[in-house]
C-alpha cells in the first residue's frame, strides 16, 4: 500500500510545482493546496500503514495488543489540514483584495511596492 501512496505524493508534488511556477496568483494558490495534500499524505505514509486494525482497546483489556494502526499521523494530518485550510482561506481573500485594489492577479504586474524600474 505504501508504494502507490508514495507515487501519488510524487505526482501531486510535481503537479503543485508546475502550478506554483505560474505567474497567475490563483494558480499559485491552487498549487499550494495541492502541495499541502501531498505533504499530508507524506506524513500519513511516514507513520507506516497498518490496514484493518483500528487502535481501539478491546472491552476486556487494558492495553492494545498485536498489530494496530498508528493513530498519531492522523492527529498530525488533521492539525495540518486545519492550518492549511486557514492559510489558504486567508490567501484567497488576499488574492481577491489584490485583484480589487491592484486590478491584476499577474504576479509580475505587481510592482507597486518595488522601486521604480530603471529606464532602459
Amino acid at each position: 500500500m505504501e508504494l502507490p501512496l508514495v507515487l501519488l505524493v510524487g505526482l501531486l508534488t510535481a503537479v503543485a510545482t508546475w502550478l506554483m511556477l505560474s505567474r497567475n496568483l490563483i494558480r499559485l494558490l491552487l498549487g499550494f493546496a495541492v502541495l499541502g495534500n501531498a505533504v499530508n499524505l507524506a506524513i500519513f505514509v511516514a507513520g507506516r500503514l497498518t490496514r484493518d486494525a483500528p487502535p481501539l482497546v478491546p472491552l476486556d483489556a487494558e492495553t492494545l495488543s498485536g498489530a494496530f494502526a498508528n493513530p498519531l499521523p492522523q492527529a498530525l494530518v488533521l492539525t495540518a489540514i486545519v492550518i492549511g485550510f486557514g492559510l489558504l482561506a486567508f490567501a484567497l481573500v488576499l488574492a481577491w483584495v489584490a485583484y480589487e485594489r491592484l486590478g491584476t492577479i499577474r504576479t509580475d504586474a505587481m510592482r507597486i511596492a518595488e522601486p521604480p524600474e530603471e529606464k532602459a
Partner: protein
Amino acid sequence: MAGWLAALVLIVPILAAGATTLAHGKPRLQAMLSVGGALILLALSVALLAVVLAQGMVVLQAGNWAAPFGITLAVDTLGAVMTVIAAVTAAACLAFSLGEIGEREQRAWFHPLMHVLMLGVCGAFVTGDLFNLYVWFEVMLIASFGLMAVGGTKAQIDGAVKYVALNLVATLMFLLAVAVIYGLTGTLNFADIARSVPSVANTGVLTAAATLLMAAFGMKAAVFPLFFWLPAAYHTPLVSVSAVFAGLLTKVGVYALIRAFTLLFPHDPGWTHTLLLWIAGLTMVTGVLGAAAQSEMRRILSWHIISQIGYMVMGLALATPLALVGSVFYLVHHIIVKANLFLIAGVAARLAGSMDLKRIGGLYRSAPWLGVLFFIPAFSLAGFPPLSGFWAKLVLVRAALEIGSWGIAAAALVTGLLTIFSMTKIWGEAFWKPHPEGDAAARPLAEAPATMLGPIAALAAGTVAIGLFAQPLYVVAERAARELLDPAAYVAAVLGTGR
C-alpha cells in the same frame, strides 16, 4: 511550580488577545489592555529567565503526559533570553503604536493580532516538540499576514501577496521535513529526536531531512538565497508592525536553525555546517550590497536585516563555544537595535514627510536629538565601539580567527565596513542635507508624540547599556552556548533520564 512560568508566557498573550478583542469597540481601553498585557508578559519572561538562570532548565509536560508522548515545553537559557527580548520588543512597539495608529488601523484588529503574533513567537521559543514548533510558526504566520495588511494600502497588499506566497512554501517544506523526521525516528519530541538520531541507519535520508529543515527555517530567517520575500514586504506595513517583524520574525527562524543544528542534527557537520558557513558569508555580503543600492529608509534597513542574519548563522556554522556565544549575543543586540532603527525611521518620516531619502532632509537642524537617537543604533549596527554591536562582532570574528576560518572573518569585517556606508547614507541624506522643500518642511522633534520617543530612547539606552556593561549579557550568552553544545543535558532534563 517553575514549569508554570513556561506556560504563563503563552497564557498571557492568549488572554491579552482575547481581552483586546472584547474591547474592540473601546479604543482607549483596548490600547491600555494591549500595552498592559505586553508589560505583564515582559515581567513574566524576566521571571522565567531568572528561574532558568537559578535552577537550570524549566520543563513542563503538558497535561502531565510524560515525554515523549505529550507536548513538552522546555526552556533553556537561550529560550528564556529570547522570550525576554521578544517581550521587550513587543512592549516597545506597542507603546510606539499608540502614537502611530489611528482608529482605522485599530479597527483592523491591530492589537489582537499583535498579541497572537507574540503568542506564536513565545511558543516557538519555549516549545520542546517539533510539530508543536510547526504549529507556533503557523500561529505567528497567520497573525503576521493580518498585520501586514492592516493599513490596506496598495503597497501593503502588494507586499503582503509576496510575503504570503513565499512563506506558504516555507511552511510546507517545514511540514515535509517533519514527516520525514517522524518516519525515520518515530518521534517528534526534540529530546527524543536528539536521542534517536545517532541510531538511525539511513543517514542519507536523515541529512536530506535536516537540509529540508534548514531550507524551511532559512526561508523564515531570510538567508541567502531564500530572502526575496523580505525586502519586497518589510517596508510596506505600519512602522510599529515592521519594527516587530524586523526585530523578531526572522530571528525566530535563526533560533529554530540554532536549535535544529545544535540539538537535533549535529550528526553530519561536514555537510550541514559547511553549507551553513557558505550561506552565512553569502547572506552577509548580498544583504549589505543590496542595501547599498536602495534609497528608501525601511528598504535599506530591511536589506541590513538579511546581512545581519548572516552573522548569527556564522556563529552557528562555526559551532565552537565562542562562536555560539557570539551568535546568542548578536541575536539579543540585533533585535533591540533593528527594531529601534525601524521606529526611528518612522519618526523621521513623520517629521520630514517621507521614507524616501531623496525627498527628505534637514532633520539634524530641526530635530538634533533624533540624530543622536539614530546615531546610537546605527553605529551599533555597524559595530562601533563601545556600542553593543562591537562586542557581538568582536566575539564572532575572534571565534572565526581562532579556528582559522579566514574567509568568513574577512566577509564579516567587509560587511561591517559596508554597513557604515549605508548608515552614513541615511545620516547624510535624512539628517545632514537640507530638506528639498526648504528648511521649514522638516519639523522639530517636539511634534512627535512622547509615546513614540519613549520606546526609542529606552531601546537606545539598552544598546548603550549592553555596550558599556557587556559582561552580564556575555555571561548569560556563554551559559546558553554551553547548554547548546551539551545536548545530552537537554535530553536528560526533558526525558528525566540519567539524573
